[in-house]
């Protein structure tokens, strides 16, 4: 009984872009495009916004119309302009807070993972404590007492989110350190700084970038929550602050919420989703374990896992 047909490979049209190899990559591209759009809007806000968001340009509580695409708020400011300018504040705070958190988190994670010993134990104790505190109440308490301006907001958010990347990077450094060529270099007497720069950092830099994206993601959400509670800088109107005013000034008593609340929140969600997509594809590339079959064991995390340490593709908040 010989076989009959051979199935010929299906013909494919030549693609124009290099084809994404996985769903993760495709998602990452979509995310990058969306984020890019928002960044452009933020940068070119003065050009794109129809009005100065701080100026009273119409009657209050107007519904969307030709001159005010998203209507006006309670003081008569144009909501669309608020939205566009809000991108600047929200994105800027998000980026800065994430940057700060990642710098600190990387330092702690790398030092802790590389040198081990007492330093490691102490630092990780610190990390665990930070991770165990409820982040939103902590954020609120810190913001209340340290002031309500942009600088404080950035600082306070970083304080809350630096710990998770620190832990994850430490794991990565630990595994990089045990790899053959690093051990060989150490055996040959390489100095720590050199080893760190040449061997360890390249191994973890993809993960650093992935963690930065995650951190920015969380930072934007936290900033929104903080501003919503009135703890952000009320003069620099971020998206969260807009929602604060919406809630406090009675958007829900009428249909005003539809154009006051909906688009702004949607903007936040879309940006965060974009970050999530990018983060997902980056993590998939940085850590092949996410594609691997077996679940990570406890040992890889040095103890019972917290949610912060479980590599969950796409999960945003800690």
């Amino acid at each position, binding site marked *: 009984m010989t076989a009959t047909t051979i199935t010929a490979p299906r013909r494919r049209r030549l693609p124009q872009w290099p084809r994404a190899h996985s*769903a993760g990559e495709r998602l990452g591209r979509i995310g990058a495009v969306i984020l890019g759009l928002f960044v452009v809007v933020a940068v070119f806000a003065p050009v794109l916004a129809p009005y100065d968001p701080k100026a009273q340009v119409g009657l209050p509580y107007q519904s969307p119309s030709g001159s005010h695409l998203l209507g006006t708020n309670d003081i008569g400011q144009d909501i669309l302009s608020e939205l566009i300018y809000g991108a600047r504040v929200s994105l800027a705070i998000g980026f800065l807070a994430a940057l700060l958190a990642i710098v600190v988190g990387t330092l702690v994670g790398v030092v802790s993972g590389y040198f081990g010993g007492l330093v490691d134990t102490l630092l990780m*104790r610190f990390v*665990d*404590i930070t991770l*165990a*505190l*409820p982040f*939103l*109440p*902590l954020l*609120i*308490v810190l913001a*209340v*007492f*340290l*002031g309500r301006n942009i600088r404080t907001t950035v600082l306070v958010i970083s304080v809350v989110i630096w710990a998770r990347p620190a832990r994850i990077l430490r794991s990565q450094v630990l595994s990089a350190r045990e790899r053959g060529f690093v051990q060989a270099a150490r055996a040959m007497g390489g100095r720590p700084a050199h080893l760190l720069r040449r061997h360890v950092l390249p191994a973890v830099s993809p993960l650093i970038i992935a963690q930065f994206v995650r951190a920015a*993601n969380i930072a934007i*959400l936290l900033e*929104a*929550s903080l501003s*919503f*509670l*009135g*703890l952000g800088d009320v003069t620099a109107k971020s998206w*969260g602050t807009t*929602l604060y005013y*919406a*809630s406090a000034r009675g958007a*829900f*008593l*009428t*249909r005003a*919420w*539809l154009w006051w*609340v*909906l688009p*702004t*929140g949607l903007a*936040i*969600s*879309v940006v*965060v*989703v974009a970050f*999530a997509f990018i983060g997902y594809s980056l993590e998939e590339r940085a850590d092949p374990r996410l594609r691997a*079959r*077996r*679940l990570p*064991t*406890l040992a890889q995390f040095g103890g*019972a*896992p*917290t949610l912060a340490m*479980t590599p*969950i*593709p*796409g*999960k*945003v*908040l*800690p």
Partner: protein
Amino acid sequence: MASFVIRKAIQYVLVFAVAVTVNFALPRVAPGDPLDYLLGEQSHQLGAEQRAQILRQFGLDKPTGEQFRDYVGNLARADLGISVRYGEPVRSVLRDRLPWTLALVGTSIILASLLGTALGVWAAWRRGRRSDIASMALVMFLDSTPIFWLGMLLLGVFSVELGWLPLFGAVPLGDQAGLALTGEVVKRLILPVSTLTLATMGGVFLVARYAVVGTLREDFLFMAEASGLPTRRIVFGHALRNSLLPISTVIMLNLGFMLGGATVVETVFSYPGLGRLVYEGVLARDYPLLQGSFLLIAVGVILCNLVSDLLYPLLDPRVRRPAQVAD
């Protein structure tokens, strides 16, 4: 196993200690007048002599070390100070509000866990197909929405537009008792619970899916099938059971997260729980109230984390009895 428990307990005591210290230190290192933070805005109206008197009354003229000892001592007696806004001990305000938060969070965690797990298992079974990808996308989107906005959305749709559910509060105005009262309470719980559930079930879903997908590929499942075990037994007795380890961990941690997130949800819905107290404290500059609620929430989160950590050895024999035999 015992050493594991002790280590974890110590760790969480440390966390609590840090929370207490943060609470103590912040008003004192914050820019501005400490009296502002202890008395609220009224402090501006006081004359110099009154200020000095109050400083003595609050013990602020004593050295910091002594102040700290007093503070801790007060805490040990569950004395959290007087609420400026309510004019009663913070402790009793907290006690009144606690059950509402428990109701909200308790219901939400159960719903979120059940829904998230069920959806996750289902998605894992249908891995790669359109329904799986669709559910993952939906969850990713849900996870990305700010919780308070989600609440606002629900409020807008169901209260304002459709008028189905009440706008705020937990208890209706007016006299109702018994079953009618319960009905009203439940009605007011629906939206906040839905918000919290939707916001957190994503996490459970992703972990459940990831865990089940990972487990489904395991060789022991193949062995079970080759041994002729019934499918139901394989899925529930083996696949799910192995997946339960990370799932239960995430559920407990979700609980902790919810306690914190309840703050915004309660604010959006004007729901009289612990979280809202935090917001009220902020608004009214009632710092004792703020600090008191923060501390209580912190304790709640710590307990959840602790339980989650302790759950793992119970569920996983590899943690309970670390291998002594090398492979």
